[in-house]
């Protein structure tokens, strides 16, 4: 036996083994959600409802700055058979939802949620009308939800860890705001400034500030150049795409911001939980920025929805709040009382999403969904 081996015996191993992500429960949740969403989408299609994302003109997403949607639909459009197109899109959305819910369940368990409460949270989110609609009727706003859902934990990591790695990761995720929708693109600059200033060196040294700004802004800049280049390569005049941004922001109007915010409050009352958490005694240190983002980003969407000419349904800011809240749950340890409150509010949100038809509704989809179910 070598001295090295003897030393290994002498000292206790300092690290505890990490739990793997793909555990039995994770796989079960992923498969169940994928299966449920696939069956529901299939049922809706069989009952004669045409997916809204495939019905709309392919270029529509481009005009609203939905570059990811445009790309995915562009690829799907290459499939010659209409039925196969629906199947491909359905399976893609269902698999994505399966993975997302598996991630949610696993992280909830890691964050000290009991099995029962974690399952109830997952079910309450799954059963929200907005969620079912996204996965069975129109996945167009999915990149927007995804963008917010990944940004919230990244902001949490930046605040909690505060090192350059977390700033880099956030910088690399910021182009999602550009790719998701033209309405979220203006968020990049404040995010970049906030990220740069989160670095203590950047608050002291101008060189560090410039460096951090470059690190956070460059990815979005590169992606913007890429979009222009690829549009030009595809024979599309990039000016038309850029003009859509100009048109959008040139025609901003006050709109009925109050009604939009009210709709958000009614359909997603869950926003109360992050606010309460920020004021909660004994909460984890350095954990308010992510909670702040969970509430503020959907409010921004609700205001922008009212102020812009883009046809954004009322359910979109609410679903964005739900997505960012679920993402937030994956990176925060909630006190028991807030866990219970979250469940109550998630169930309430699910109920309200189906019943408050005055705020948002798609009757044809609901008919198709509930026929022979």
């Amino acid at each position, binding site marked *: 036996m*070598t*001295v*090295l081996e*003897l*030393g*290994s015996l*002498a*000292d206790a*191993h*300092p*690290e505890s083994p990490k739990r793997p992500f793909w555990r039995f429960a994770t796989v079960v949740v992923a498969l169940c959600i994928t299966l449920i969403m696939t069956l529901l989408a299939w049922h809706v299609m069989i009952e004669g409802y045409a997916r809204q994302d495939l019905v709309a003109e392919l270029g529509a997403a481009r005009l609203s700055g939905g570059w990811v949607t445009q790309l995915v639909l562009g690829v799907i459009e290459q499939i010659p058979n209409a039925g196969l197109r629906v199947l491909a899109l359905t399976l893609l959305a269902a698999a994505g939802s399966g993975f997302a819910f598996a991630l949610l369940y696993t992280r909830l368990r890691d964050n000290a949620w009991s099995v029962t409460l974690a399952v109830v949270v997952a079910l309450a989110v799954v059963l929200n009308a907005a969620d079912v609609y996204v996965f069975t009727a129109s996945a167009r706003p999915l990149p927007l939800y995804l963008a917010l859902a990944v940004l919230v934990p990244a902001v949490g990591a930046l605040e909690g*860890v505060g*090192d*350059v*790695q*977390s*700033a*880099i*990761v956030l*910088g*690399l995720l910021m182009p999602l705001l550009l790719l998701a929708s033209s309405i979220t693109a203006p968020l990049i600059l404040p995010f970049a400034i906030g990220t740069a200033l989160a670095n203590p*060196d950047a608050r002291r*040294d101008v*060189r*560090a500030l*410039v*460096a*951090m700004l*470059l*690190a956070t802004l*460059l*990815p979005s800049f*590169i*992606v913007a*150049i*890429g979009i222009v*280049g*690829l549009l*030009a*390569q*595809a024979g599309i005049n990039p000016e038309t795409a850029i003009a859509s941004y100009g048109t959008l922001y040139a025609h901003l109007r006050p709109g009925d911001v109050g009604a939009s915010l009210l709709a958000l409050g009614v359909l997603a009352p869950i926003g109360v939980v992050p606010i309460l958490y920020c004021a909660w005694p004994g909460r984890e240190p350095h954990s308010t920025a992510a909670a702040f983002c969970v509430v503020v980003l959907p409010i921004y969407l609700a205001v922008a929805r009212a102020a812009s000419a883009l046809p954004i349904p009322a359910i979109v800011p609410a679903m964005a709040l739900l997505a960012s809240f679920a993402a937030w749950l994956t990176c925060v340890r909630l006190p028991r009382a807030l866990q219970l409150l979250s469940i109550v509010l998630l169930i309430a949100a699910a109920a309200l999403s189906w019943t408050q038809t005055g705020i948002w509704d798609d009757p044809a989809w609901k008919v198709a969904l509930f026929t022979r179910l």
Partner: protein
Amino acid sequence: MPRLVATSPRDPAVDLVGEPAGSTYRELAHLRAVELLIARKALRITDLAVALRQAHNWGSSVAQTLIAAGKIRAMDYYRTLAEVYELPFVDLQQQPIDPDLVSVDDRLDYAARHIVPWRRINGRLVLAATEITADHFVWGDARFGTDNYDFVITSPFDILWQTQALFRDWDSLFAREALHAWKPEHSAKFTTTKAQRMTLCGAAALLLAAALLAPRATAVTVMAAFTLLYLVTFVFKFVLTVVGSSRRADVDIPPEALAAMEDVTLPPYTVLVPMYREAKVLPLIARALKNLDYPPSKLEVKLVLEEDDAETIEAAKALRLPGTFEIVRVPASQPKTKPKACNYALQFCRGEIVTIYDAEDQPEPDQLKKAVYAFRYGDPRLACVQGRLNYFNRSENWLTRMFTLEYSQWFDFLLPGLDWLKVPIPLGGTSNHFKLAALRQVGAWDPYNVTEDADLGIRLAQEGYTVGVINSTTYEEANGVLPSWIKQRSRWIKGYMQTWIVHMRHPIQLWRSVGTKGFFSFHFFIGAPPFTVLFAPILWALTLAFWLTRGTDFGWLMPGPIGAMAVFNLLVGNLFLIYFGVIAALKRRYYELVPVGLMLPAYWVLHSIAAYKAFWQLLFRPHYWEKTEHGTSAITQKSLAAVKGDAA
């Protein structure tokens, strides 16, 4: 000392008043030697007191501790020890070994146990050893029979020097040919095999035939293949950077964990410093190695010098280095490469762990302990840990800034990314720490490969070992002189080409041994990059031409998706590669380098120039080692002046 005494447990009846309880006869002999030295005023009692305490804490003998600390010369110590044993002391340089008595089969034992057959005197064999223990009798009895031999005492340096001289040709041959003899398919002695040449010719013939039959379709296919290759390489780098930027990818060994490690449990460690014509920077590496936080009695530093490099040998002698330092003279032979020198020195190593530093290296003092920690708590198959490399002269000129950004990206992002993904890691040329047994088991370095480090990383993976990265940095001198940079870079690119070709001799075997993920990583981290820098200028020119002349005849070369991929590579891919270079500076807070990083494309042009030189050399001088000149930096000069000032 009589056999009975050496081989028996200590007799409690023997009068040893005042001796530490529980001491063995071996330890007592050394204590007697120390007592004699004190009595002769060759050693101060305060030094002994310190050494006794250190020896206890470090788990070393008092002799090793005193010699390593430079408190006494090895020759004086072993002369005195011979008196204790009441045996003659022999200076093997004056009274050399009879070459007929030594056996190449016992070659490693001579170095490891410090025992060697010396001469026959009056028909009786005499063994030269540095001490006499029960183990020495067991070893002697097994070879020469009981009571068929006597002992004389000598010093470890005499044994090292004599075994070097006796086995010069054998060791040299072993250093050059061992790997090729054992596994010719893993050796770069011949760049390509017959099967590879036939495959290459077949592919070329096929391409030519296709070009003649369907020139346009062939051109489009070739262009598509290169574009796809470039795209996948970029995506892989993107993934590695994102994964590697995560804090979880950093194997972070906190100072408290190191402090908790007891010196007594640390294994013996060998540091190899291969050098050739590096006399001027020798004082710097000597100072850095003396500053390593590791018990000197458990450390052996081997300055591996070419025997025709009299200047460096004399400079090393003139430094009057402590007893932990030894000079290994490498016989002149071809190929004259660093891996060959390391293989040669490996035969004299006694550490459980061995590491390599270059002549201009300045390792952080905690590096050896961090390596021990990583081995101790890592996977049992962990055979090597790589320290991070960076530069101390980063702000000297544009080239050193670019080089620093590149190294920061490599060692702070890409290698941790590879480590995180558990795929083969191409080692850096220095600061890699090996378990000696594992290193020997895989055949050590390939002397014919000019990036032997990268090749070794792949071979370790193929033999089922793993490689890790530790958070300790070795600072080096960035090459800030353009011709010298081109030379160094062309060697690296040539070496990567060699490594890829060598391991692609049996691709299925490679795939089976490193797994699908490792196989993919091997191609897109080691295989593709040297060729992409070779082809990059052509692709850039064609893509630009296509883009600028859109609508003209040129567009046929990149139809539809291929054109989109090419534009994506040109804009998004290249800009993100610049971005990766820019952010590479952030982990180390080299903020001043961030804006400079925007000039990376100019640096890539230099890569391409080096790649063409590398390719030319691969064809015509595959084993030629482009020597990197060190000591050109103003910071190095300043440090040297400071060291000289301290010495004065």
